[in-house]
């Protein structure tokens, strides 16, 4: 292996990258657009959930409770149906996503020091909303309870809800916090697959691949020369997304830097390998594009990037284990948000390593074979 030839190949690759304005735009603009899109779309979704309040108590307590919901910013009360029966059509039509039912006698029960049950109904057709909406609602109720106790100076043990909520509940912008780390992995995957899949097939089409293998360039030198620039670009993109997430969307970085790095590197190998494989198998650039699209859709749908895996049918759930992105998301979300350690993330990290080794070796073998056959 000659370092000099590898440097030459990298130099060549960067020159060609520079001459491809579309590619540069794609590489720099895509992460920014996706960051804004996913960051804000998710954030907006969580705020302003349309809410109906059925106030059967008509007391100061019920008014305070409603005010607590409105004041939180997550819920916008748009309807005040007279009875619970009127709720169903509103939810069915999607006019409201959340309904709050305050039964008659709530105020009286609370004054007597009893637990007062209130009903919160959440539109379950959207798993994201149901999870987030019910979470926020419980948090608001808990805050309301503690505020009331403080007001009254009551020190008696409060209803059990309080303790449960604190465990379940995380910072205010929870979905963005999980979305941005996920986005890092997704953007890396999309851009690496799109570029890598074109990289080799383009050179085969133009005949330069054939030419290079008549020279003293070795298959390994060619591969390293090809992959290094793209790995560098992918890293730059990752930094861009991470910076955007941390400084613009204020995603807290609670995690271990090394866990994130190892996870991303392992996943990068998988992505480079997949792109390379597609490029080697495809006869034309068009074919390579089609293959990327074909892989991308199940990846986005099944990885848990957009739809939570827990809400998928039991039959489908095992399939998510075939998608490398699933494990990358698990590692990044775990490490970024919860600060999970290497031990806690051992399973997804090993899975990523497995995917990386298998796919990347397949790509290397395919390169050698393509050249030799």
């Amino acid at each position: 292996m000659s370092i000099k030839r590898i440097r030459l190949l990298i130099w060549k690759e960067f020159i060609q990258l520079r001459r491809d304005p579309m590619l540069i735009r794609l590489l720099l603009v895509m992460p920014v657009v996706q960051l804004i899109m996913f960051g804000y779309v998710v954030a907006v979704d969580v705020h302003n959930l349309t809410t109906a309040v059925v106030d059967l108590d008509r007391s100061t307590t019920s008014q305070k409770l409603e005010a607590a919901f409105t004041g939180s910013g997550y819920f916008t009360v748009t309807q005040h149906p007279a009875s619970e029966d009127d709720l169903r059509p509103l939810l069915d039509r999607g006019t409201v996503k959340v309904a709050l039912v305050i039964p008659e006698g709530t105020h009286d029960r609370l004054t007597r020091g009893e637990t007062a049950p209130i009903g919160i109904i959440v539109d379950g057709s959207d798993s994201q909303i149901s999870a987030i909406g019910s979470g926020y609602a419980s948090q608001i109720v808990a805050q309301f309870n503690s505020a009331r106790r403080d007001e009254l100076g009551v020190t008696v043990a409060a209803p059990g809800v309080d303790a449960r909520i604190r465990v379940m509940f995380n910072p205010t912008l929870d979905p963005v916090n999980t979305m941005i780390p996920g986005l890092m992995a997704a953007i890396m995957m999309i851009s690496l697959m799109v570029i890598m899949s074109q990289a080799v097939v383009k050179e085969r089409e133009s005949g330069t691949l054939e030419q290079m293998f008549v020279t003293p360039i070795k298959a390994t030198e060619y591969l390293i020369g090809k992959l290094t620039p793209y790995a560098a670009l992918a890293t730059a993109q990752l930094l861009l997304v991470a910076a955007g997430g941390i400084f613009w969307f204020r995603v807290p970085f609670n995690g271990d830097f090394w866990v994130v790095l190892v996870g991303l590197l392992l996943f990068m190998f998988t992505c480079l390998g997949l792109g390379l494989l597609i490029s080697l198998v495809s006869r034309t650039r068009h074919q390579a594009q089609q293959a990327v699209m074909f892989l991308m859709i199940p990846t986005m749908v099944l990885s848990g990037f957009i739809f939570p895996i827990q809400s998928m049918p039991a039959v489908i759930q095992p399939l998510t284990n075939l998608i490398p992105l699933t494990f990358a998301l698990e590692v990044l979300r775990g490490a970024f948000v919860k600060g999970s350690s290497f031990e806690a993330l051992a399973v997804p990290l090993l899975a990523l390593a497995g995917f990386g080794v298998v796919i990347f070796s397949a790509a290397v073998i395919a390169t050698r074979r393509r050249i030799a056959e």
Partner: protein
Amino acid sequence: MMGSRSFDKLRAGQARPADQRSERPIADLSEAATSPAIAVSGLTKRFGDFTAVDKIDFEVPRGQVFGFLGPNGSGKTTTIRMLTGTLRSSSGNALVLGEDVIRRPERVQPRIGYMSQKFSLFEDMTVDENLRFYAGVYDLSPQQFTAQRDYVLKMADLVGREDELTRNLSVGWRQRLALGAATIHEPELLFLDEPTSGVDPVARRQFWDLLYDLASRGVTLFVTTHYMDEAAHCNRLAFIYRGRIIASGSPAELRTEHMDQRIFDVSTRDADPALLWLEQSPEIAEAYLSGASLHAVVPSGSRLSAVELGEQLAVAGFAGATVAEVEPTIEDVFVNLVSRQR
């Protein structure tokens, strides 16, 4: 004959470019006695059930222009790929510049050059960057690179256009630049896989002049082509058909040894019906289009004369047809060889 004219021109010392560098021999031909440029025996390549190259044997002496002819899909490119060390053979031996290219391609590759019909330049890189890349690949020193770059730019007529993207060059320039890039390391042996396909006749002539220039400096050239007129430019030829070499020798040898039949050149305005008539005539073994006229092959035993064939054509309604016996061209030899194989 186009070829001999070019050779004469070359011998007269008119070959261009006439700078000092281009006169210097690249390969030392005194070595020629020790090992041929290429020696192939029993070379075979199978792809599954399909045998692309079937036990071929041939030898290319150093300093020769060797033409490797055959229709598309006959095994030309497969052979070149084995000889350049990019494809493993199924069986057989191939010595290139005295080295076993199948087992030790890395010993051969720095000493050979390769140019394909695709011209294989990086289209999104400039003339200078392309040369710089290939010079680096062959590990040329900065001094060597400067000298070679000047030579290639002059040879390809690209002085002053160093910073143009090769994508924007027209075909003739691209072809000459590709030749320059493929020979930047002054290889002793150059493989050319249909280097002139898709190039206009003027550029083809200029290109062959450059090839003679290389040959005059001792470089062995291994050229595949399906332009039969180009075949006459070669010192030696080998015909490959369906993976087998069906004939080889100098153009003159091939014309005499493999042609015991006579060729009549038939010119008529009604070429299509005349061709049909000739094909159906019992006295004609074969008829086909050759350039603007028709060629009719008369079997070796036949005493048919040109005048008689002209009269027969006139009777058949082709009044203006002129018939003349001609020397068989390489194309005639090739058609004849292929029809015998069938």
